[in-house]
């Protein structure tokens, strides 16, 4: 049984259809990436899974249980957590408070402290900025915080939306190394990324999205060699 399964999911923004029957699976332990150009529906897929934009049609199964239609705030206790597009950290709170908010639904103080330490091991920069107001940090640090906050709920499935956006290449590499590390520690990852190069490097499998439908699905190594993908998303002719 896959950890996450989308079965013919249709989602709309008002009257505009953004997803036209998405079906995909994510198995436990995998890093699956959704690649595609702007407006293809990558972020919408994550928003639909997370219940922020409930799908109008189709089923979403998590560990075999139907979760479409559940409120967004209920997902975290199911084991789904997200580092959203645009990071969406709490700007006027400190780094520490942001991480604590990530563990909002938990009541085990000791465990939360342990997890804060774990996030600091993954992102030592955050430890230096412990008491700083999050909105005053650099883009890269905010991205680290967004991922760190998402990890604070000990998710089974981590949804990552454009973690490379707006970051310098050196920083992108470091963030992706950490994402690999998080995956090795046992978290399944669904990664949405415009930077298909780095995404396919760490992913096990990938889906290619175009205008709300999946046009291709293959192991990441195959997608990297696919001439169409190379032309459209890897910047090669």
């Amino acid at each position, binding site marked *: 049984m896959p950890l996450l399964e989308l079965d013919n999911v249709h989602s709309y923004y008002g009257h505009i259809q953004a997803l036209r029957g998405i079906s995909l699976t994510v198995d436990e332990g995998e890093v699956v990436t959704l690649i595609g150009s702007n407006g293809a529906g990558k972020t919408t897929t994550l928003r639909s899974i997370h219940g922020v934009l409930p799908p109008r049609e189709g089923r979403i199964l998590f560990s075999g249980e139907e979760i479409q239609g559940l*409120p967004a705030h209920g997902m975290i206790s199911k084991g789904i957590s997200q580092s959203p597009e645009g990071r969406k950290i709490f700007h006027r709170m400190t780094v520490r408070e942001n991480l604590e908010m990530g563990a909002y639904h938990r009541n085990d103080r000791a465990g939360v402290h342990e997890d804060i330490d774990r996030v600091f091991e993954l992102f030592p920069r955050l430890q230096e900025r412990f008491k700083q107001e999050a909105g005053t940090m650099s883009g890269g640090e905010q991205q680290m915080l967004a991922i760190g906050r998402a990890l604070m709920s000990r998710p089974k499935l981590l949804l990552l939306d454009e973690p490379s956006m707006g970051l310098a290449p050196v920083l992108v590499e470091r963030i992706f190394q950490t994402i690999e590390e998080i995956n090795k520690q046992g978290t399944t990852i669904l990664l949405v990324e415009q930077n298909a190069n780095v995404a396919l490097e760490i992913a096990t499998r990938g889906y290619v999205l175009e205008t709300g439908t999946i046009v291709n699905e293959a192991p990441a190594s195959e997608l990297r060699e696919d001439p169409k993908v190379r032309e459209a998303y890897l910047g090669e002719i």
Partner: protein
Amino acid sequence: MTTGEATKTRSAAVIDGIKSSTWSSRIAVALTAFLLVMLLVRAVQEPALFTSQLLIGLTNGAILSLIALGYTLVYGIIELINFAHGDNFMIGSFVGLTVLSGTIFGLGLFAPITINSGAPLRILGVLIALFVAMAACGLLNVGIERVAYKPLRNAPRLAVLITAIGMSFILQNVGLVWKGPIQVPFPELISSANILPSDAIIFRWKDLFVVLVTVPLLVALSYFIGSTKQGKAMRAVAQDKDAAAMVGINVNRTISITFLLGGILAGASGVMYGLFNGITIFNVGFTQGLYAFTAAVLGGIGNLTGAVVGGLLIGVISAMSDQYIGTSWTPIVIFSVLILVLVFRPRGLLGDRSAVQGGGE
């Protein structure tokens, strides 16, 4: 050496600031300074009278602060000016009055509590009136949000503003039907006698009562928002609703709790207003609501400390205006303050939306 340089750069910055300021803002500063100097002259001439007015202003301001907090809490979380809030305050004073009358929904539960009742009964009556009004207004505010604002959560901002005004009219007319079109007297349960031994400076039991109710409420509110999990959730929702939902915060429930808090404060304020001024009327929420709204804007809408500072300032300004300019001029003075703030410092004295979102300016 370094401190000297620091002072130098700071004074240079001040001079630059003055050079780059506009003429209209210079006039505004000059006018404010002139009024402050005039006030100071009066204060030196008759210090006792000035101090008494200051104290009255602060107590009136405390009552306003509690209403202003309701505006600012709601604005901070859903960016709505809840125009029905002032009328909720009026309903609070009516509920308090009804409780004190002892006859609720035509049922005579107990004899009216009046000035002739014994001290313990009076204290008990006031406390019960406060608690009932706080509960009623808190729940009323939650209900208003459910019925009138929640269905419009994703509608254009203007639509919600219009329902808020509509809600205000509905409550006002409920008040009109309930207690009629004329002023209704509040029993004089708290003595107007001066606490202070001298007759020169006046600080009455009534004033003390307002302080004794307001301060604990403010401390409790500040603790709730600063230190409890629910308070942190409120700050998170105010900053980013999507992100708050993603970390597991029930956004709708958090918004309801914000309205509950605002309503509770309005209820307490309504009962205090009645006991303090001896009267209430169905449209008291309109005037007091506008004053409180002015206070919230003056302090910086969305900023909790700002609402309290703004409330106290508006209270003091109106007391001073009553004394030295004339009672009929007071509304003009207060709304001139509103216009001046909106023109010259639209974000308010302490900056908008900062405190409820966590962290000051």
